[in-house]
């Protein structure tokens, strides 16, 4: 389907965002051109992060998934761009979160309890972490800390031993950042991360294949399929 067709389909599809009420009787309904195609991240521009926020994100995700010969770092895999587009879109707006009040801290077992949508949380937390870094590491922003200090601060967020200002729960932010970073690293390249499917190649995941039937009984053999994403192999669509 061409991009005009895809846009039309996105406009008429009765997916999760709420459709008009419908009545069906006498047959299975069918609508031409209405496939619920995935929302690709097009272009290369950043839409959510400010330059300072982008510096923070690049520094942080590259400690979560650092460079080494085994495979790409998070920055090499384009995770910051993925995060930017996710936060600029429905996920950032909290489209699958209940954010109504009242808002109370709760027990760890009760999960996420902040009023912030993911985009609001990133915005508040990046500032709060930079403020914390400045107060505790000689006035430096997080991005300019030595790797060991970055790791120390990240571990403090993860454990909840670092207390942040501006109403930001450090553990909840760290958990979301780590989860979203792994999403950007390992999701289909359609969403802007996992550049060249290099993260999939690193672990040996062949991607969005539809049929492994002939390999079911070939125990322990290497499956020689080329890595493939929903847009096809890079050789088909990006050369």
């Amino acid at each position, binding site marked *: 389907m061409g991009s005009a067709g895809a846009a039309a389909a996105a406009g008429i599809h009765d997916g999760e965002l709420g459709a008009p009420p419908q009545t069906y009787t006498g047959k299975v309904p*069918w609508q031409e051109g209405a496939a619920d195609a995935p929302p690709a991240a097009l272009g290369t521009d950043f839409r959510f992060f400010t330059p300072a926020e982008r510096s923070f994100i690049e520094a942080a995700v590259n400690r979560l998934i650092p460079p080494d010969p085994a495979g790409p770092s998070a920055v090499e895999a384009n995770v910051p761009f993925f995060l930017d587009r996710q936060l600029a879109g429905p996920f950032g707006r909290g*489209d*699958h*979160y209940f954010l109504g009040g009242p808002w*109370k801290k*709760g027990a760890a077992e009760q999960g996420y309890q902040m009023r912030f949508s993911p985009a609001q949380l990133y915005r508040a937390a990046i500032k709060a972490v930079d403020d914390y870094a400045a107060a505790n590491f000689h006035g430096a922003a997080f991005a300019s800390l030595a790797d060991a200090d970055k790791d120390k601060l990240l571990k403090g967020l993860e454990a909840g031993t670092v207390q942040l200002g501006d109403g930001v729960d450090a553990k909840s932010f760290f958990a979301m950042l780590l989860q979203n970073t792994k999403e950007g690293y390992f999701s289909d390249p359609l969403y802007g991360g996992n550049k060249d499917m290099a993260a999939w190649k690193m672990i040996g995941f062949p991607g969005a*294949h539809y049929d492994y039937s002939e390999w079911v*009984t070939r125990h322990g053999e290497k499956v020689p399929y080329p890595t493939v994403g929903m847009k096809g192999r890079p050789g088909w669509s990006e050369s």
Partner: protein
Amino acid sequence: MTTTLKPVDAVLVGFGWTGAIMGQQLADAGLSVLALERGPWRDTATDFATGFAQDELRYMWRHHLFQNVTDDTLTVRNHLDQEALPMRHLGSFLLGTGVGSGGVHWNGQIWRFLPSDFQTKSHNQQRYGAKAVSDYDLTVQDWGVTYDELEPHYDTFDKLCGTSGKAGNLNGQIQAGGNPFEGARANEYPTPPMTQTYGPTLFGQAAAELGHHPFPHPTGNLSQPYVNPLGAQLGKCTYCGFCEKFGCGNYSKASPQTTILPYLMAKPNFTLKTECEVLRVELSADRKRATGVTYVNSAGEEFFQPAEMVILSAYVLQNVRLLLLSGIGKPYDPKTGEGVVGKNYAYQTMSSVNVFFDDKLINPFIGAGALATVIDDFNGDNFDHSGLGFIGGAYVGGMVTGGRPIEMIYTPQGVPAWGLEWKQAAAKNYLRSFSFSIHGSCMSHRGNYLDLDPTYRDVHGRPMLRMTFDFTDNEHKMSDYVTDKAVEVAKAMNPREFKVNRRTGSWSVTPYQTTHNTGGAIMGDNPRDSVVNKFLQTWDVPNVFSLGSGAFPQNAGYNPTGTVAALAYHAAHEITTRYIKAPGPLVAA
């Protein structure tokens, strides 16, 4: 303003598995049937075609097919002294919505409960003494229905789905290659078991060496093409590894879409309305009869739909909430033990063991929702519990449902969740590891229940459901015992190393466990102890039926869908052969 619509014989509230099953049975009996579904229409070609079905981010992590909690969620707490707070994001369970609901994004694990599972109280009391069923404030009950009564209906569901498996007990004769502990089946499975990949095969070999009884997991991911009695065609599973949490693009996974809807949607006396959420069941002045339901659609219009019969066929959590909101049955009070609606909420007790090899390529991406070799030696009462201090059990399965890399990279004990060490462990172990699932029962407990939240409200202004739940010592002891048995199997596989993920601490709403919520609208043989009778008919309002896992008085160590479906067919049989000729209570109170 509420618009009153033309009356129908039966209105179904929710259109997943139970709604589709009941809808087909009632429509075939000639009734005018209307299904009201709060979510959208969904079909294979439009919503999860093979060109874009294998998308981990969108379906698993962005909840594309799941209930959106923005407008309506529930509140959760572990115990009575805590304040319940809203589940602000799905985690522990992944609720369905839309046509087919959870039947679209389930794994296709099709089990029957053991005969003794239906007599949890009397069976365990007789074998282990009265204390065994009352320790830890357990409130287990018998179901009021037996395995033998349900067997024909389990069989109907197997034939509908084309279930792939190997019988272990055919009419009392134990069969090689099947589950020797299962209740007697009248018939072999409709299709042979799935061919096992490397991981499940290694599990089966190790389990057999230890003297256990491994068999292939019965599945609704089909081993070969199949045409069911309604004329619906299913294809052979291609092991793409995107099954649970995803829709099947290949018509290989049994779902309402692949098994019932092509037949049911063509019937002129059946109508489906989507984007219509039922707010409550309306009762007559004497509250002994339902007059219909009030619903609101996505345009904000409110309607009263009169009906001779109201079938609650939503998910357990919505069914229980609608009973509470409509004033059907007496709400349960955990302090006095009085009342029944919301009583005995239970869940599933899960743990796992990851095994890591140097010399074996497991290729975990070759997977399917129910692709596993399983032992049932430590489930239910298949083993002697004397002196163990718990009742119940779990199956242990060497499972490879897929190798989706955001969710399913296993790293060895002690490896941190991020950083260089994590990255290198992920790269080293992804192709050479897999997991055993220890899928345990969850007994009912005096303090575990559902009621209406006093604070939080949904977009319609209705109180949210409040869930009060934690695992008890019975569940922790059971889980540790069976997990130890799984560790023995892991050791027998001679891996480089293994990692044990025990069920520890309190239940948390965050990490995914299972969408196997049960109880709250429990069945039984009298109205003092149960909400519905053996035909899922509410004791208090005989023209209201409540289907689904809400009827389970406690949860067994198996995936619930097979039993949910069998109970629905059992109820439908009684409704179509007895109730519609003489409406009224099907069991004397």
